[in-house]
């Protein structure tokens, strides 16, 4: 690579840090009037998070709770379902349906199912929002895990069965270890689907289920960029850290 190419690539690379810088500044700004380039600093906004004065701490805990449980459930279910699909002779037809919820805008999907959620008393509750998230995350997990079930894997499974291993044994000692990397990726990505979801949460949650993305929007609406920035950063930091540990986690397997 020539020197100028490298400079260019670095320039573009550093652009991607800017969101963290700009939002970081807002999150520690006391007042930041135009045209000041840098704000007066304060730690108050982060303090509010830690002290639990604002809705941020509860929002954070709720978001973590929903996203972690969604990731667990959709990964485990998605793993089994993708196997059931992959072993069917018309697997492509079955897989087609998994794409449906993935290509429809979550907000519009929520608008369409809202009436039924209300009818069954799920709207405005944690359970309802959780189900809504599962509607998005589970099909995605199925798509992610589908390529794992190659004929070769099936042969391993067959071999283990012939050697007398029980069904549980096959899953725990043969299949899961082989799928470990993929399972981690799928788990993290379904976590992110739930962690980032805004439109569906705000509709099905009727304002009662205040996850972090909902809070970001709410703070922007009440012209409070400081707390909006804090909430946005809390959303952005876990992925950034996980990325440092292993980049593969973030790269979608829809490829």
């Amino acid at each position, binding site marked *: 690579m020539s020197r100028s190419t490298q400079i260019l690539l670095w320039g573009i690379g550093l652009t991607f840090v800017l969101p963290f810088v700009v939002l970081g500044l807002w999150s520690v700004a006391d*007042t930041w*009037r*135009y045209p000041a380039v840098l704000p007066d600093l304060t730690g108050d906004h982060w303090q509010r998070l830690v002290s639990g004065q604002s809705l941020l701490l509860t929002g954070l805990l709720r978001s973590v709770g929903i996203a972690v449980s969604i990731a667990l459930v959709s990964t485990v279910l998605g793993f089994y379902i993708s196997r059931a699909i992959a072993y069917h002779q018309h697997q492509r037809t079955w897989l087609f349906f998994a794409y449906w919820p993935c290509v429809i805008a979550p907000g519009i999907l929520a608008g369409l199912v*809202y*009436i*039924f959620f*209300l*009818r069954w*008393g799920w*709207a*405005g509750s944690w359970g309802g929002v959780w189900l809504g998230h599962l509607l998005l995350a589970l099909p995605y997990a199925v798509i992610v895990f589908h390529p794992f079930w190659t004929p070769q894997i099936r042969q391993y499974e067959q071999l283990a069965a012939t050697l007398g291993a029980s069904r549980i044994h096959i899953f725990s000692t043969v299949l899961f270890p082989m799928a470990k990397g993929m399972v981690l990726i799928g788990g993290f990505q379904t976590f992110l689907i739930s962690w980032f979801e805004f439109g569906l949460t705000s509709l099905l949650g*009727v*304002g*009662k289920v205040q996850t972090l993305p909902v809070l970001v929007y*709410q703070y922007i*609406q*009440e*012209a*409070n*960029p400081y707390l909006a920035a804090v909430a946005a950063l809390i959303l952005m930091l876990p992925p950034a850290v996980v990325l440092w540990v292993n980049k593969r986690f973030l790269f979608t397997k829809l490829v």
Partner: protein
Amino acid sequence: MQRLLYFALLVLVWQCRSSTAEPDAILDKSWPEIEAEARGTTVYFMLWQGDPYINAYLREEIVPLVDSLYNIDLQLLSGQGTQIVSTLMTEIEAGVSESQLDLCWINGETFYQLRQINGLFGPFVDHLPNSQYIDWENPFIAQDFQQPVAGMECPWGNVQQALIYDTTVMTTPPQNRMELLAYAQRHPGTITIPSDFTGMSFLKALLVDLAGRATPFQGDFNPEVYETYSTQLWAYLDSLRPYLWKSGTTFPDAVAPMHQLFANGELHLTMSMNDGEVDNKVAQGLFPESARAYVWATGTIQNSHYLGIPARSGNKAGAMVVINTLISPWAQWKKMDPVVWGDGTILDIERLPKAWQDKFADIPNRQFAPDRTTIQDRAILEFAPEYMIRLYEDFRTYMAQ
């Protein structure tokens, strides 16, 4: 298989249309009984949360208060008027027996729409002990958008629309539509109108200015009056458009972003449905101390905001107790403090016990907002709700497209 699916869907949709709410026996109960029933319950209160001061007042004063008085868990939910209407309407369509909401902040056009779909519970206001102090003589309180309140919603606060400018930027603020146009021509891009409730109320002020008086807009909705003056209004706005913010091609969808634009100097004029808001925005550090609110010479809308209880609320007792607390002298007095919220009271001060009269008299003066008594003669009574609904729609059609 496909037929079966279709049939299942039909059944599902059919089911959604049945079942209605049952009448409530709560209005036959005495107040102590209602209080007892409310104790230890959760009340879901949906309100406009576009202002940090209002949010803080409720979160830090009212929520702890009803908790300590009645052990009520008051949950605040974010939602504007129209969102409340659509939430309640979808619930009616879904045939749910218990609403997501127990209490909501409503204004004229929301009141009108909720009455249309029978979405409100009542009349309940007379049952509230504190309602004895409400200033029913005042037409700005007893009528909501020309509709009698009739006990179906309880007054909560009274405000007048004000314009806010910065004395270091603007020496003589515009006093009518022609001066506004002239200012915009001299300083293009510094004036705009929000596409929300506040903006529509400003359009009403412009209609009154165009008509030269407010009388045509009193009473029931008159399509001819609307046609005549709204045609003039769009013509006026057309002449103003090129000088508006972003050349009038887009409009802020709420006052909060508009305040931000004003604070940053991008706009020279912002507006508020609360004449006292400027004080708390200065205290908050958002506006400079040179910011001032005023009511322009041709007058602005004065109205009240109300509290209503959805017909299908599962906790009407709790909602009534919370409303009674919200209209108590203490809560009204606290709310009126310019650095708390600065919201006008709906109580008739004269009727309060002497001690409370003194406390209301001692509320620190507004520093940056005009005195309420001086703007009263520039107050315009709200128009019938249909005007608002038409303005919303036509503003989008003529201006925002």
